[in-house]
């Protein structure tokens, strides 16, 4: 129907145009019903994206009248801002590890527990899901890996004779990234995990029985030829949730390693964005950062969509 509206201008489609108008009039209550939600959505989700794109071509700083500077912000970003390039690298490393790892872990765990008794399954689900909804409870990793001898990990390693003095986990560039990745993974079994559990429960059992008769030999073949293709819609939804999550855990890094992290070793595009937009008020420049980040997220989603369409073929 959207297409009819777009084509409406041409002469030969005039009857379809009329039909669309008639439909619009007949269903006008639909527009009333979506209006409150769409108004909020336009104001606080769509408008910020559009405004960012426009501002990214200016030198806006909240105080002076903005001037158009065309691509200057983008040129500065990629050619003149070394820290941004570190941020891009870190963001890609984070997202490329945490996104797929959390996605695969969510699916594997959901698949493992699928055949458990419902009551046991509910308990196991809670254990795996709890860290993702418990707010700032990830701070406990700071206590576990604390740099003094009260840190449980350090004390245990010393006890075992593996190290002689405490490791400053959060001040040593060698450990910061891996630790942040582990903590991010720990909090990442969220919506996609629940979606997978539901999707697996929804696969029709008769498909498995038919598969067994048709020569499916083991659970891996069953997974690839029956389960995954049946669950494609959930896989798609889960992928989107995992990708979005994998770009959004700058807070974990700040809380554990401080801001900025030592030598910018865990500095992500999100940090760079907040630094220029929130602290330095270089809104034009930070908007360019936001647009780049937005493009990366959309690109990642498009890529994954392509990959998932190949499942089971």
């Amino acid at each position, binding site marked *: 129907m959207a297409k009819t509206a777009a084509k409406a201008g041409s002469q030969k489609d005039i009857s379809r145009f009329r039909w669309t108008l008639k439909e619009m009039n007949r269903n006008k209550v639909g527009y009333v019903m979506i209006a409150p*939600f769409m108004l909020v959505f336009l104001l606080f989700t769509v408008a910020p994206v559009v405004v960012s794109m426009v501002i990214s071509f200016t030198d806006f700083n909240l105080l002076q009248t903005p001037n158009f500077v065309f691509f200057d912000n983008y040129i500065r970003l990629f050619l003149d801002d070394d820290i941004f390039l570190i941020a891009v690298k870190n963001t890609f490393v984070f997202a490329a590890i945490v996104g797929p790892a959390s996605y695969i872990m969510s699916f594997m765990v959901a698949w493992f527990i699928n055949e458990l008794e419902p009551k046991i399954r509910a308990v196991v689900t809670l254990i795996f899901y709890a860290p993702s909804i418990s707010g*700032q409870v990830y701070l406990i990793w700071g206590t576990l890996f604390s740099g003094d001898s009260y840190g449980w990990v350090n004390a245990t390693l010393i006890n075992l004779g593996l190290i002689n003095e405490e490791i400053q986990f959060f001040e040593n560039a060698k450990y910061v990234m891996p630790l942040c990745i582990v903590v991010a993974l720990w909090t990442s079994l969220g919506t996609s995990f629940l979606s997978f*559990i539901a999707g697996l429960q929804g696969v029709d059992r008769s498909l498995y029985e038919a598969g067994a008769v048709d020569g499916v030999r083991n659970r891996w073949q*069953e997974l690839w030829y029956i389960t995954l293709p049946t669950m494609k819609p959930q896989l798609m939804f889960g992928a989107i949730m995992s990708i*979005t999550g994998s770009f959004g855990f700058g807070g974990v890094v700040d809380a554990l390693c401080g801001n900025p992290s030592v030598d910018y070793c865990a500095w992500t595009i999100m940090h760079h964005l907040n630094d220029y937009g929130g602290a330095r008020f270089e809104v034009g420049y930070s908007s360019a950062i936001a647009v780049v980040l937005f493009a990366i997220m959309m690109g990642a*989603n498009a890529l994954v969509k392509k990959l998932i369409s190949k499942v089971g073929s």
Partner: protein
Amino acid sequence: MARLRTRKHKVVLNRSVGGDAGITLLLVLLGAFMFLPMLYVVMQSLKPLDELWMFPPRFYVVNPTFRNFKDLFVLMNTSWVPFSRYIFNTVFITVLGTLGNLFFGSLAAYAFSKVMFPGRKWMFKAVRSSLMFHKTVTAVTNFIIMSALHMVDTYWALIIPAWGHTLGLYLMKQFMESNVTDAVLESARLDGASEFRTFWVIAMPMVKPAWLTLIIYSFQDLWNAGSSIYIHSEQLKSFNYAIGQITAGGIKRAGASAASQVIMMAVPILVFVITQSNIIETMGSSGMKD
């Protein structure tokens, strides 16, 4: 012919013992990775002072005590803004934000799935694409828009954007599509019920699991909201923020800090325990078909 065996009256197919054992082992290892840090928070919160500062640190607690929780409440009473104010702020924002999201989100979800107005497909696609980017991307620009609307440093800066949260609407719409049959709605319409009445009296009672799911998501978001760039008055800040301030007082407050984390995590976990089956039911229709 493939081997079939039964387990508890269900036909279970093609399961090797080695595979079962391997999967169980992996599950136990991953489960330990997930569960032990959570357990450690609870242990820390129950440790008396001498156990908190013993060397080498011990994972489990020997003489559990509620002292840390008492300390936390004492610390709360020393805050500059009365602690009840922070609690009120969080409750107020969470309740209004969640109710608005539930009502406006369900209304829109109903229209998107059951009212055939032209343009609904691309509009819904636009709503759906917002799931693909993280909201911190738009935080700075949002600040500019909110200052233009004079919403900065008011409760509304947190409440109104919550009304437009898209994940709840998305799940609600998918659930309505697969659980509310058109035939039921059609008969209500033939009886002369208005579209709003059909929505409220017929459709809404049929999608209770989705309500709960939407409420939980909105609740989690607002409950866990800490400091926000939109709020700078101390009197308007959240419970989560205030508790963070108390426990930021360094290592001498390790016990109270653990106690506060236990309180902060207990609420969402309890809510999830109660609503789990409804949420999973809603997720059954969460799939994205194109």
